[in-house]
């Protein structure tokens, strides 16, 4: 076991090196690719911090979905024009910024080393309370997300809806209502289609599995939803499914389903459990799973819509 610290240091150095390359790379596209690799590496750091739930999220979102988003964006920008006249900052500014960044990082590092010992923690409280309010959820993260901080979780889903509305608002007026066509430039190759056909059923199964086990083991609504989202993105890339029109009623309903069910349940909590956003203890687990199922749906729809971008002219022809 004595090899682990070296692995930790090696992993940390690798993460920092890839991050440094993301900042330093001259070409935009190289930087984007480097960032995607960075997101995947980061998932390992999270595993080492005993945070498998975060690792799953980071791998699915930080590496996967963000990767598709940035690579498509990088490709489009690269196809249009690279960064016009070279306005590279001067050496003086670089030096100044470098010193500033180093100061901030140094101050932060020293403060982190100064964090109090023994560390304060809500783990005992969470552990004590987990059976009362989290009602039989073996995964403390899911209990915290769905019970103690349910308000945050609902707001976060509304942030997603708002982000979708914000992305759509970047449409040209003429194209409003049409479907996005993010991948129109590339005709799908046979291997892409094959991959999508193979992955779609397996991935869907794994996504639902991750959501379902999330009640007791690492996983949960967000991670499961993100996997399903990734599957939909791949099928769209393979042109096995076309993105829907942004004014499709079912799409809008799917997007708000999660937060809406959450909100309605929060309101009824006042009458059935004595407080807004409270669950009646006897049926807390089924209710939480019920809400989470709708959140999976919303996430699985929202992430691909965020990646697909605004609707564009020339689609729907």
């Amino acid at each position, binding site marked *: 076991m004595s090899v*682990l610290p070296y692995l930790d240091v090696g992993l940390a150095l690798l993460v920092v090196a890839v991050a440094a390359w993301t900042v330093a790379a001259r070409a*935009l596209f190289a930087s984007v690719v480097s960032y995607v690799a*960075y997101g995947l590496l980061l998932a390992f750091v999270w595993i080492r*911090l005993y945070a498998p739930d975060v690792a799953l999220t980071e791998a699915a979102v930080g590496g996967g979905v963000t990767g598709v988003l940035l690579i498509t964006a*990088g490709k489009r920008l690269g196809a249009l024009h690279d960064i016009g006249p070279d306005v590279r900052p001067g050496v003086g500014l670089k030096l100044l*910024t470098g010193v500033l960044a180093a100061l901030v990082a140094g101050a932060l590092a020293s403060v982190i080393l100064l964090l109090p010992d023994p560390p304060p923690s809500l*783990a005992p409280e969470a552990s004590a309370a987990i059976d009362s309010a989290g009602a039989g959820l073996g995964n403390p993260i899911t209990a915290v*997300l769905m019970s103690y901080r349910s308000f945050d979780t609902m707001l976060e889903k509304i942030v997603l809806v708002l982000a979708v509305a*914000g992305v759509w608002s970047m449409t040209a007026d003429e194209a409003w209502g049409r479907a996005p066509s993010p991948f129109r430039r590339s005709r799908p190759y046979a291997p892409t289609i094959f991959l999508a056909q193979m992955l779609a059923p397996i991935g869907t199964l794994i996504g639902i599995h991750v959501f379902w086990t999330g009640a007791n083991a690492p996983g949960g609504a967000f991670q499961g939803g993100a996997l399903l989202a990734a599957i939909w993105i791949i099928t769209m890339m393979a042109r096995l499914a076309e993105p829907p029109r942004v004014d499709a009623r079912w799409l809008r309903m799917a997007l708000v389903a999660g937060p809406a069910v959450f909100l309605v349940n929060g309101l009824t909590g006042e009458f059935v459990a004595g407080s807004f956003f409270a669950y009646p203890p006897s049926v807390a687990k089924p209710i939480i799973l019920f809400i989470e199922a709708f959140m999976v749906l919303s996430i699985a729809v929202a992430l691909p819509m965020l990646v697909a971008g605004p609707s564009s002219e020339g689609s729907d022809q």
Partner: protein
Amino acid sequence: MNPSVIAGLTGATLVGLGLYGFILHPHPLRKLLAFNLIGSGVFLVFGIVARRGAAAGFRFDPVPQAMVITGIVVAFAASAVAVALILRLSAANSDLSLDPDARAEPSDGEGP
């Protein structure tokens, strides 16, 4: 050195690297990447706080970890909005060489 100290130092370094890129890079997409580096550094700080808080049979404090998951989702949403904005801008305007300070001058008439 235990993993949480290493991760903490990594987090601080990432914040520093990201800050450097965020200030210096003129290209908005590069700024966005740098912003995401800062973001993951900040999440790592949450991560070590959670890891240090191991107690009561838990190997971590679930509260900060839950916050990180929320944070990652929000950061992704932010990236998506920024990318849509950048792409729209590049389609509307052939000149994407934004040094934002230089760019805004004609529209708002502020001095250099």
